[in-house]
């Protein structure tokens, strides 16, 4: 964990509501895909936890959906603006498996991109199932393809790819582990439909984002956990719905 200042390099919409922000700063505290940062936004009291889409030595990519006042203000940020960030928060995904399957829904997809990049760098054949509501909301599909992933898109309204949800794309896919992130109904469906162990990334309203306030606690097979500190990634076998 680290508190540090980042400067915006670019901030542009990918769809009507989803934005991609590139920032420059000290990324050394970010060690695993699936971790998140907590942004201070002027005018908002609490920080906003945003998953890390990708990072390298100097830059950080965040992909976020405008859902409220905080993300609305984020979307207005211009090149050169700065944000006070807590970085390297959460446990992140543990890389494993020789035939990994990635299942992402909506703004649950961005952290899977950084994961896919690292799995591909390790030489793993990656299958990514990306779920959206409708064709106009699709983002990151081409970027996953460019990594060399096999990409399957699903849309709830059937306007692109496989009609339905990410779990409707599972038939015929072979995998020895999976990684998922998305809205809770999707995570529940993935839990029921998958046949191997896997890692789930959860979302919860947070106070601090670094384990101090106990605002985001959940019950698991292995005891009480804080989504922000002991998560956001939980193993399938420890989840209690």
């Amino acid at each position, binding site marked *: 964990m680290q508190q540090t200042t980042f400067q915006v390099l670019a901030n542009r919409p990918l769809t009507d509501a989803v934005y991609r922000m590139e920032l420059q700063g000290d990324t050394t505290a970010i060690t695993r895909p699936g971790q998140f940062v907590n942004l201070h936004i002027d005018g908002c009291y609490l920080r906003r936890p945003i998953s890390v889409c990708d990072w390298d030595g100097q830059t950080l990519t965040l992909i976020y959906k405008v859902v409220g006042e905080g993300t609305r203000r984020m979307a207005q940020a211009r090149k050169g603006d700065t944000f006070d960030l807590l970085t390297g928060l959460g446990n992140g995904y543990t890389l494993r498996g020789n035939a990994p399957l990635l299942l992402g829904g909506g703004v649950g997809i961005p952290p899977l991109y950084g994961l896919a990049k690292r799995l591909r760098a390790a030489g793993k054949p990656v299958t990514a199932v990306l779920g959206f509501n409708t064709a106009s909301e699709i983002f990151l599909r081409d970027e996953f393809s460019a990594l060399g992933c096999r990409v399957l898109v699903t849309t709830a309204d059937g306007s692109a790819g496989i009609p339905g949800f990410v779990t409707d794309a599972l038939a015929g896919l072979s995998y020895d582990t999976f990684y998922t992130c998305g809205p809770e109904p999707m995570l529940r469906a993935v839990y029921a439909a998958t046949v191997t162990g896997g890692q789930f990334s959860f979302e919860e309203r947070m106070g601090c984002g670094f384990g101090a306030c*106990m605002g985001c606690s959940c019950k698991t097979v292995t005891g009480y956990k804080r989504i922000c500190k002991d998560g956001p990634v939980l193993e399938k076998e420890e989840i209690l719905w």
Partner: protein
Amino acid sequence: MVDLRVDLCGIALSNPVIPASGTFGYGNEFREFYDPNILGTFSFKGTTREPRFGNPTPRIAECTAGMINAVGLQNPGIDAVLATELPRLKTFFHKPVIANIGGFSVEDYAYCCEKIDAEPCVGWIEVNISCPNVRHGGMSFGTDPAGAAAVTKAVKAVTTKPVFVKLSPNVTDIVEIAKACEDAGADGISLINTLLGMRIDLARRRPVIANTMGGFSGPAVFPVALRMVYQVAHAVGVPVMGMGGVSSARDVLEMLMAGATAVQVGAANLVNPCACRDIIEDLPVEMERLGISNLRELRI
């Protein structure tokens, strides 16, 4: 050179800045941000007789200049705190700590305080009779002078450590409660706990907090807290730890002028993990600017 030292019931503090219970865990999470030994001390997470998960989530709601929490006293229980948390705390924190104790009956409070009394690393006990987020016990003791006195008396009977009673602002006359605690033997008063509050999610047409209501804290409550600290500090003869929305060195000085002996910082730690470090660094600067040489005779 300004002097930041204060005395809290005979124990010297290097400065009056104290992270408030529930915003600092048992200290461990903040070690990656700064050395907790720079603090005057800290008040550890409210601890109860039995382990508690607390309330369902969402437990947090944002407000203008503040937040609502309804954590509900999640903690591992007194036995796990004694067996695990305090031994770990001692490895990195070398000052006496404040043990914050919650309960659901007079016996609960006494049980925990008796156990904690044997801990040399505990300098003070802070009895939380003001948690707004638990259905039985908690705040019900803090909203009634007789209940507050009963808890105070029971705790004082089982410990030799200085006992601070942490009061709720959700009362008509906080001075009456403070006096009842003092009469029952309290060595000091901590105030204020959070103000009972609520937010509604407009799109979902239901409360943001799963528990409907929660405790409101943050800079927005500072003037209310300051007023209550002023009233209580001028009505009792025991030291007061002032808290409620404190976010800056200037807020700390206001609390001291209102009559507090030491000052706790709560919600600020959650939005800026280095809040207390920053305040401690800013204090001498503000004191120089204001011509204040020490913090012990500021009461107005």
